[in-house]
């Protein structure tokens, strides 16, 4: 018996190291040749923005794409109106509130790059959307395995109940954004100069000044702090999309739209949950569905093979590859505050 157990262990040892995951490389065409377009119009007042950038190579160190500048972006509606966007920052083009989105109408954009290539989006329609009725949270105890052991990773799951709207096949997306306050302690800012002793250098906005000697002076409060707190945004991992399976009595019930990790950073002060319920056209729904499949598939043992996510931009006078989506949506917002107090309860 002992002998067998020993043999089992021996083989287990091999199994532990047997399944393995390693990077793999494929020769692919350069990503920099691709134009990426992203933008939307809503039924809320503008300005609306469209960003133009280049594709990111898979071995790129940064996730910040190169902006595409000096292009001409024009928005069209189905009533024959058009509006030219202006480039406000590199690669970001903004409208001037000439056109405002309206439910039931379709919109598209035309992008003309500085080398004369024209791309147009497939027109997208703004459908009606229902209201968010309630946002709730539920505590979930979780742990996660790190190389140094098991740690607590509890979360608040955020659920919404809402009206599914008048559309028969409601294609809805919930966009979840978390905003939380962090303390920055700008008065404790230091500069390290040779011979590398910390040199106190309170930020001017902290309201503190340094008195006494250059290295060992004291901090003296002279004004209110203007930059002691700041708001940080957290975004959803994958788009949350509606599912006809989840509609009952024209109501969406208990839709999990996001989760907030319970960490000291997130709950230093309070955490604001913002949920936008957005109507989608079938095309936009399919586009976000592909993104969701890709984002969620990553954690599944049976990862479905992702397809091409081409979006609705089409080349007009060329055959270049163009990615991205220009979509139109009606948006209803709601928010909810998770404060320290709630957390303590």
């Amino acid at each position, binding site marked *: 018996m002992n002998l067998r157990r020993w*043999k089992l262990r021996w083989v*287990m040892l091999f199994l532990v190291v047997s399944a393995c995951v390693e990077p793999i490389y494929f020769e692919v065409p350069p990503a920099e040749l*691709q134009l990426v377009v*992203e933008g939307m119009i809503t039924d809320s007042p503008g300005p609306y923005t469209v960003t133009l950038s280049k594709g990111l190579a898979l071995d*790129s160190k940064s996730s910040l794409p190169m902006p595409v500048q000096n292009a001409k972006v024009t928005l069209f509606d189905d009533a024959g109106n058009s509006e030219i966007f202006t480039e406000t920052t590199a690669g970001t083009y903004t409208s001037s509130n000439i056109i405002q989105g309206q439910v039931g109408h379709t919109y598209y954009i035309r992008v003309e790059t500085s080398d004369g290539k024209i791309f147009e989006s497939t027109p997208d329609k703004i459908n009606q959307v229902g209201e968010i009725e309630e946002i709730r949270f539920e505590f979930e105890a979780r742990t996660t395995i790190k190389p140094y052991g098991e740690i607590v990773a509890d979360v608040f799951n955020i659920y919404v109940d809402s009206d599914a709207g008048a559309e028969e096949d409601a294609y809805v997306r919930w966009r979840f954004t978390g905003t939380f306050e962090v303390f920055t302690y700008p008065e404790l800012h230091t500069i390290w100069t040779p011979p590398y002793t910390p040199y106190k250098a309170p930020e001017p906005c902290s309201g503190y000044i340094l008195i006494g000697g250059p290295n060992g002076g004291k901090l003296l409060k002279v004004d209110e702090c203007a930059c002691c707190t700041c708001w940080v945004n957290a975004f959803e991992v994958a788009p949350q999309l509606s599912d006809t*399976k989840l509609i009952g009595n024209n109501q969406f019930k208990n839709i999990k739209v996001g989760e907030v990790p319970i960490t000291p950073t997130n709950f230093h002060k309070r955490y604001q949950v913002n949920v936008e319920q957005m109507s989608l056209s079938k095309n936009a729904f399919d586009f976000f569905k592909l993104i969701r499949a890709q*984002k969620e598939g990553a954690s599944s043992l*049976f990862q*479905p093979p*992702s397809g091409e996510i081409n979006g609705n931009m089409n080349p007009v006078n060329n055959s270049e590859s163009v990615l991205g989506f220009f979509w139109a949506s009606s948006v209803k917002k709601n928010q909810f505050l998770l404060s320290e107090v709630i957390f303590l309860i």
Partner: protein
Amino acid sequence: MRVPIVILLLSYSISAHSQDILALKLDGSEQGKSLSEVLAEIENKNNAKFFFLPEWISSVSFAESHQGQTLEQALAYLFIGTELNFFAMYPGTVVIVKDAKQSIQRKEAIQVAIREKKTIEQYVLGDQGTSTKGNAVLKGKVIDSKTGDPLSQVNIYIVDLQVGAATDQMGNYSLAMEPGIHVLNISSIDYEPKVIDLAIYKDGQLDLELEKMARLLDEVVVQDGGALEISESRIGETQITMSSLKLAPALMGEVDIIKQIQNLPGVTTVGEAATGFNVRGGSVDQNLILYDGLPVSNSSHVFGLFSSFNPEAVRNASLYRGGIPAEYGGRASSILDIKSKDGSYEKWNGNAGIGLITSNLMINGPLQKGKTSLAASFRSTYSDWLIRAVRTDYVDLENSSVFFYDGTLKLTHKINDRTKISATGYSSKDSFTLDGDTTYQWKNLLGGVKLDYQISAAHIAEFSAGVSSYSYNVLNSDPLNGSELSFRLTSSVFKAGFNYQQGNHQLNYGWQLTYYQFNPGSLKPTSSVSSATNLSLAKQYSVENALYLSDNWAFQNRFFVDGGLRFPMFAAFGPSSINVYKPAEPLEISNVMDTLNYSRGEVSKMYFGIEPRLTLRWMAGPKSSIKFGYSRVYQYLQLITNSTAVTPVDIWQPSGYYFKPQRADQVSLGYFISSKNKIFEASAEVFYKSIGNIIDFKDGAELILNPHLETELLQGKGEAYGIETLISKNTGRFTWSMNYTYSRAFRIISGPTAGESINNGKQYPANYDQPHIANLSWKYNLSRRYFFTGNFTYHTGRPVTVPLSAFASENTTVAYFSERNSYRIPDYHRLDLALVIEGNHKRKKIASGTWVFSVYNVYARKNPYTVFFKNSGAGIPKPYQLSIIGTIFPSISYNVKF
């Protein structure tokens, strides 16, 4: 080699008044005397002369009295079973001759048989005096000596004539030969070979019993194994032998039928943990797996790491990958027909094995001696340690567990010599818990009865009825989303098959009926607070019905034709409601125009087909044959999957209003040759296959719990072609086999819009398209009890879809993927070795044990199983490869027979 030269010197002047000495009547005084004594007496008394070499007849004597018989009759009787013959040269002169050629061959064959300790049996059919003119036909049936089961594919080879035949499915054979003395070698894998010393002078019946090999692990087919492939009548058919299976190196020591099949030419798999196998560019669901005639929907344990058939319970398995016989249908690529073992009718015995992963037990024996037998087997995992030990960054397997079992039960009762009834039960279950939250469970449950009835000597009937059920559940134990997803497919099968033999024709005909009930998916919450909805997709009902007829015709042992027709019919019926979409618009929910409702039993769609089947074999020479096969098969059930490898939670979807049945047409042509002494054999086979109405999924398709799958799936065309080559050495201490296959599998799915096409309607490789496949396997007998075996496998990496770049979408980075299947993962290759040590070979021992030490993936190649994407630090998805068995993997198992 000693060649006796027969010289007869005839220098005698013949007396003119001599009488016909062969007509001489014996008086009985010859009893007890030797032939030479008696002949000398006759010579003296009758002025006759006999010519012979004394040593030929030195052992021949008259054991009994032949009073009243003529000398001719007495000599004919005496010479039966010898190579001696005689003729009257003149009325008073008799020459005893020895047929030199036949005698040499006969002697050699007998000597070989004696040397190899084969059983030699003598039979005499008719007598020389009444010898038929022309050929004598020998017919008979070969059965297992213990179980009485008819044995198919038993090779019957006439050594001196160098022709042979194999038994059919009912164990029957028929051979024509010149009257005279012949030596027959009877061989079948897993059975003790037998040598028949036959004297045949008229048509006759010779039924044979073969004994199962006492030594589990010895390869059987020795001298004439080489004849097997050539005399095998059917193109594209392979018999899987349990004995060679047990000698092959196995992953974790688990002997596996499906893994063995994956090493055959033209068969491949997408990876270690992939369910099933791919045959000649076909998908996994295009293989029909039958267990005692009942369909098995999922043949895997642990997602395909092992297959769900306990090799101890299996008698034999046949794979038909080209020229599929008319009695099989319903799957486009291949048929794997697995037959379970009958229990022994004589005594109880068993078999137990201990491996690293599983233990198994098989017992069988008589409930009523000679009449009723029982065979039962069970196999199960020990614990969850296997899965817990697999640790990857990919999924958290810490809280995972795996469990599986399979069990079989077979009861056989011989009502009389002509009637046998048997009942088979089979059950398998898997449970796989991932990350503590999600449990995947799947189950197969089969039960059936079969009646074999011999209507007359040439007419056999087989009736069977049974039910096969496959179901799976996915349990989510998350408190707020707790749910149970379930799926079930139940097939009720009835079959009536007949086999009629007349002369050189063998007719097979019958009727098959299958009634399918599908529960395509239901979801229910498992807690009162769960947000999961109570949802159940409508059940689907359909019937598959087929009539078939085929004629198996052997012409002069050189030309063999099996032509047949199969008439399948498929009907889907209500209750059901089907969406009608706007004409010329894509099938999308937004385009629904109307709904058709069908009441209970009302046919919503019906398909008829005609499937011609033809196989030809022409013996181009004694050592070579040319074979041809054509078959058309309609497939009415398909597995709907959108992950790279088949998973247990994929959905079986019947044909119906929107899904047309797949239609596969295949032609194959092969040349088979063996070397003069049959040590080597080689074959080459080409095939072309065209498949209509193949199904593939749209990008990002959601298949589970989707009541309108027609909106997520597309139908198109498939095409596959290739060449398969094989060379093997079958005899001696060192035997080996090598095969190489070049084959391609493509699809075209082209619809009116981009959303209804894949890769814009261009041809693309199927995800199991692996152009180059090579396998090498060998066995070296270090001694009678020690074997060193191994195999090497190579195949081209399969196609995958990979990210080409990434782009920003809102605040996340999204990968931009290539067209479907436009890149390939690195090639797969692996070497496995095993050392097999058998217990001693004494026949009279209580138990015999066998140790198998095997090493899987000897040089620790990290063969990618799949490619997936993880976010790198910058949020850009990067491709990673997952290797299931990424290292060298030794294992040990022990089997004992008692």
